[in-house]
């Protein structure tokens, strides 16, 4: 037993070798076990059968919208209505990491705000039977609108996008609209007109560049920010068919002419009007540069005003414009926008107090709950006509854009259904904007990935 120093060092080197992280560290949980559901008596006051004595455990994603709304709006609403009820709010930035083991162990909470870059995959969860069917919630009476059901108050998109495998499993709460953001104050001061057509947009870029300011930027580090207006433009030009073909993985969907045209159009912006250094910046950097007056326009979702609230200079006046129309013969009107409900709230099938989880969602989907959330986060919700009276400039502009779009608000699904394809489009977008890839090569490369995915039997397929 002569342990000399060298043997020891060698031994520890081997130990280090074995310590290289490998996925699967957490147990897969074996078979049964986990929570046993507790339910309360169904009464008109408690239509979803919440167990009042069992705390309702809620996990909130701590992202752009924070978690204050849960603590100061929805929790007190529920606790106020049901004497003795308790809502236990937990907050995390890493939904997947925190909740995946709880699902696998059979002890998930009652409500999960499944949001952020590290959210759980709803398709897999619902495929594995891990989520509660929310139809019962939609059929329950509305919280504070007599004579109406919860489902009557919802924007139709909420039902469409929360459905997986034919079941509504998720309440997508925040209604997010995409567009190109600018400072209304800056545009007023310089006398710049809000562009409606692509020609006007390009001319405006020219004018802005001439004034010594960068015209356009996006988060090069997260190229989905630029993928968004490019695809939106293609769909406005070619109609909803373009989008449906992409989502349904139709052969040659990505080689459609409108996609090529949109790619070529944006490549020109990339070559001539992109802010120096765009390729390497994050979304926060790009947005802060806009707040500081270094760049005039950038693409983003309507969460931007809330996200930037600490760095918006006084009187910045966020405004948003729909992606301009590329041709005079676009299939969709100029007011058409990409809009999608985001931030999915779900009730795990193995929740301890499933009725409590549903009741919490019912509180969220009330007029009061939605209006107060809207005021706190400068965002619209999927609850119809629940817009606060006093609106911030960005929210007012979003509401206006969304109202003008009316029926012409659309959204693709592939981004959520096929993450691999989404990643492929993202990286190709950066190559396109940097001029390293032609529009044709862009379409080819993405199409290739789509074909590969279509053939992969391990990837679950969806259809719309």
């Amino acid at each position: 037993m002569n342990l000399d120093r060298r043997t020891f060092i060698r031994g520890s080197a081997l130990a280090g070798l074995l310590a290289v992280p490998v996925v699967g560290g957490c147990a897969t949980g074996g078979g049964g076990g986990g929570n046993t559901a507790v339910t309360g008596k169904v009464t008109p006051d408690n239509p979803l059968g919440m167990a009042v004595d069992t705390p309702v455990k809620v996990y909130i994603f701590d992202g752009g919208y924070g978690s204050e709304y849960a603590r100061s709006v929805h929790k007190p609403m529920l606790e106020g209505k049901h004497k003795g009820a308790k809502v236990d709010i937990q907050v995390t930035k890493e939904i997947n990491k925190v909740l995946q083991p709880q699902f696998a162990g059979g002890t998930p909470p009652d409500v999960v705000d499944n949001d952020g870059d590290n959210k759980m995959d709803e398709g897999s969860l619902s495929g594995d039977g891990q989520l509660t069917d929310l139809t019962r919630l939609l059929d329950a009476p509305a919280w504070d609108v007599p004579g109406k059901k919860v489902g009557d108050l919802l924007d139709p998109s909420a039902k469409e996008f929360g459905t997986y495998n034919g079941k509504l499993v998720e309440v997508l709460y925040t209604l997010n609209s995409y567009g190109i953001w600018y400072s209304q104050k800056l545009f007023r001061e310089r006398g710049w007109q809000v562009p409606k057509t692509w020609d006007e947009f390009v001319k405006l870029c020219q004018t802005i560049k001439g004034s010594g300011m960068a015209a356009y930027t996006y988060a090069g580090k997260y190229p989905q920010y630029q993928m968004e207006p490019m695809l939106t433009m293609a769909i406005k030009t070619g109609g909803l068919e373009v989008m449906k073909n992409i989502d349904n993985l139709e052969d040659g969907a990505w080689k459609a002419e409108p996609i090529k045209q949109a790619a070529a159009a944006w490549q020109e912006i990339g070559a001539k009007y992109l802010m120096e250094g765009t390729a390497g910046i994050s979304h926060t950097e790009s947005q802060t540069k806009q707040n500081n007056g270094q760049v005039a326009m950038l693409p983003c979702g309507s969460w931007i005003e809330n996200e930037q609230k600490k760095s918006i200079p006084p009187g910045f006046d966020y405004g948003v414009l729909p992606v301009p129309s590329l041709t005079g013969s676009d299939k969709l009107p100029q007011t058409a926008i990409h809009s999608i409900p985001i931030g999915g709230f779900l009730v795990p099938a193995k929740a301890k107090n499933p009725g409590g989880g549903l009741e919490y969602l019912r509180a969220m989907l009330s007029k009061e709950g939605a209006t107060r959330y809207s005021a706190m986060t400068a965002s619209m919700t999927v609850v119809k006509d629940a817009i606060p009276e006093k609106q911030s400039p960005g929210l007012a502009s979003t509401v206006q854009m969304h109202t003008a779009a009316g029926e012409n608000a659309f959204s693709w699904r592939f981004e959520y259904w096929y993450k691999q394809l989404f990643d492929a489009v993202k990286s190709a977008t950066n190559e396109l904007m940097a001029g390293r890839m032609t529009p044709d090569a862009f379409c080819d490369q993405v199409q290739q990935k789509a074909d590969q995915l279509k053939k992969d039997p391990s990837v679950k397929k969806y259809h719309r």
Partner: protein
Amino acid sequence: MLATRRKFLFIVGFLALPALIYVVYVISPYVQAFQIAFTDWHGASQTQNFVGFANFEALFADSTFWHAIGHNAILLVLGPLIVLGLGMFFAFLLTSGGRKGGVGGSKVYRVIIFLPQVLSLVIVAVLFQSVLKTDTGGMINGPLIGLGAQPIGFLTSPDLALWSVLGVLVWQQVGFYVVLFSAAMGNVPLEIYESARLDGANRIQMFFRITLPLLWDTVQTAWVYMGIAAFDVFAIVWVLTVDQGGPDGSTQVLSTEIYRNAFVYSKFGYASAMGVVLFFVILIFAGVVFGLTRRERVEL
């Protein structure tokens, strides 16, 4: 005999608990990863379906996987070469580069060189984001743009990004090996150097004839350590690079792909299969390093 046995029991007594913790939290997940690799587990269900070698078949047909392996290979060959070379060079300068011991100010250098090792990898990656920025805010590109030159796309050009990752890895790692080698060099008795000097050996000869052979064991160990660091690079790639492994997949490595498949695509079975392959690749690498570098050991 009895004394040896007592000593043995004494050592076992101390090692039992750490060994148990190690088995439960390190070894058992490994074994489990092997099992998961043969299933279609999505990460949340309590049951999994056995799919045989399907994950491995798909893996070997996946071009992303081979790209990642290629990037790992580049880091694996160049990382240790550069880091150990630099580490050895600095350590030599610090311990015996001057007339009497190290070069002037070697104590200060020692602290400076070791400093990056104290920072967490994520902080290093965030720091280098600013250093390598392509606009005027970049530490390197700022002055370049000021001089009227074109900025260099350290992280935004697919041809450069992997080299930038390698550079950051070297910067972060080298300090540890300087300390490791310095300590080992300090253990070499001064008399050997003195007698070599009397025999008329110059500094280069002393390094290659005396220092390096006496340090061989340490080098071997360092090589494996560094190889593992090069295999991992997860934090640096994930935080530093554009599009987490981009641009256009040019900095994807096995560890980022494992993470992506497991936690973004929910393909835990597939990701575990990658982990299993990574495990064997590292095992082979360690075997190769120990095999290639085997030499007569000089006992002091």
